[in-house]
């Protein structure tokens, strides 16, 4: 199967069409709209087609989701600020070169206030904690140049406690290792310039995630899912161990998960969505760079630490900041 770029672009552009607004499911997913917009934009960026969406309307929408009470972004106008939608909003504005439109101080304050004394982060003021949120916070602060030494050190201490005997990481101390959590921890270490903290066993654990059909799973003895083409592949890229799995077989697995009508699903023949579309194509872009020097598919290169194009991330100030 070949890469159905044009179909995927149309698929993303149509996600907000009048036709999709006729479906009840469209309205039920407002709580994911900001993330969904980021996933859609990343799909288009990867396929070098960002101009298929109207830039100013996107910026207007993002800014309309500011939750004035918390200082963060909600997923949709009137929704409460949450760290996950705040990262998506910041990423979108950064990709569009529109960070100046943002009240940076207020977002930095919102994010910092979510850190707990043990170093973990809450998603919002109601207290759920997760290694995902530590990454989310560090990524927001890194993009906005708001990292601070104490916050970084406490975050790192917490993440270290989430390491398990297999060298991988769980969502909290004591929790089972999971592929998506590994991405968040390794990318956090990369943001904090502390990849020396990685356990030697981790790369082997990551390579064991590839199953016979070429796809990657998130935990031992689970089915493969195309989204791990990002969650597992990006830490391998950060650790410079991409050769530790069979990238050609993964490439084939990703292509097979495409739907003829555009979009990608978790496994071949299943229902597509923009989340799986984004993380399969960003993963494919890593393969395109590693195996084919960027020449097989007409794709932009994606930074494995931020899941954003290098054109945006190259301007981020590396940590530790020089005074």
């Amino acid at each position: 199967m070949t890469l159905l770029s044009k179909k995927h672009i149309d698929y993303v552009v149509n996600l907000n069409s009048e036709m999709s607004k006729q479906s009840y499911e469209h309205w039920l997913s407002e709580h994911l709209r900001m993330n969904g917009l980021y996933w859609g934009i990343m799909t288009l960026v990867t396929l070098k087609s960002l101009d298929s969406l109207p830039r100013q309307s996107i910026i207007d929408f993002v800014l309309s989701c500011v939750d004035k009470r918390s200082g963060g972004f909600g997923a949709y106008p009137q929704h409460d600020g949450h760290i996950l939608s705040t990262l998506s909003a910041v990423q979108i504005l950064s990709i569009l070169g529109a960070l100046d439109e943002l009240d940076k101080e207020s977002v930095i304050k919102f994010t910092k206030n979510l850190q707990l004394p043990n170093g973990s982060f809450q998603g919002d003021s109601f207290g759920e904690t997760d290694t995902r949120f530590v990454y989310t916070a560090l990524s927001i602060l890194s993009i906005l140049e708001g990292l601070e030494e104490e916050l970084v050190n406490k975050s790192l201490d917490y993440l270290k406690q989430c390491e398990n005997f297999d060298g991988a990481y769980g969502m909290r101390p004591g929790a089972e290792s999971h592929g998506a959590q590994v991405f968040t921890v390794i990318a956090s270490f990369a943001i904090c310039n502390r990849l020396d903290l990685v356990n030697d066993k981790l790369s082997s654990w990551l390579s064991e995630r590839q199953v016979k059909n070429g796809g990657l799973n998130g935990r031992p003895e689970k089915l493969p899912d195309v989204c791990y083409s990002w969650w597992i592949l990006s830490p391998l890229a950060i650790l410079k161990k991409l050769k530790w799995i069979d990238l050609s077989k993964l490439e084939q697995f990703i292509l097979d998960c495409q739907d003829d009508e555009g979009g990608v699903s978790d496994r071949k023949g299943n229902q597509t969505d923009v989340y799986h579309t984004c993380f399969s194509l960003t993963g494919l872009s890593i393969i395109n760079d590693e195996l084919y020097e960027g020449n097989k598919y007409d794709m932009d290169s994606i930074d494995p630490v931020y899941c954003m194009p290098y054109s945006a991330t190259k301007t981020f100030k590396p940590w530790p900041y020089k005074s």
Partner: protein
Amino acid sequence: MWHNVKKQTLSSEARLAKIERDKEKIHSYNKLKDEIFKIRNEGSHTVEFLNKLTDLLGLNPEFYTIWNIRRETLSSLFHQHQLDSQSTLEDELKFVMVLMKRYPKCYWIWNHRLWCLFQLGKDANWEFELGIVSKLLSMDERNFHGWQYRRVVIENLETHDDLENLKINLQEFKFTSSKVNSNISNFSAWHNRSKLIPKVYHLVGKLNYQDEPLFQSKESLLLHELTLVNTGMYVDIDDSSIWVYLEWLLSDCFFIDELSNDKYHDILNDQLKIINELNDLEITDNGKDNCWCLKAMIIINELLDNRSAVRPLLEKLIDIDPLRRGRYIDQLDSF
């Protein structure tokens, strides 16, 4: 996000019929949502408002803002003594339970359940929660939320009484035994076991508790676990869970630090022999080596400092496990 849902292709008639059906649903959903935001902005917290929130969450439990509004409203009603907090929170737990059965993978529902329990404080019935989560894990044995929730429940059952805590954690250890005995591939149970063993051992030592022979020494514990894993290898040689667990048993300082060097080497050599025999059986049956056996032999030989034995094993793996060829080549190069 869709997981594990087969693609549905609707005929054009069916699609039009769905659009027609959805019209009414969209209308009433949006009407309810708009009403809720309007009331919220007015800052009005009433029991009737709670009912509206119940309706909306029944339609869409992923709508996190509505959960937040619900907690704000409940807190405010408790504060104004308009509702009795204990009986309301108990009803709330029943409402959450109905949703959990329909949406077992929704983060926000689990989160709200915990909020209710923490609000109940000393009146929270964590024993009951343990029963619920055991039932959930019997239906969906790898459910990530379920295992996480179980650990939180245990933390809350624990007290300042070490003996009580020992009993709770021993019971948890036995729970993982029953899980791996019914399905050796349940890595979630193996994982939890790896966290429980040091904890129980520590408590047994602290209390000088004699009733659990298994936990009297690290060596007996290690040998017991190795027997379990060795049995597992014969049940399903290609199950990755047991091999990951084996590596932990043979290399973690919890077990090793107190073993004499000779004893440790004996154990490693015994395992090497068992795995070699198993691999020979595989060669007889399937005509080739087994990847997991070879990988385990590499780990053990490295622990024994038998570096010369590792190279031929890596060379074999390059042939029989082509997915990870690059890893073995890198490892060979590092010699």
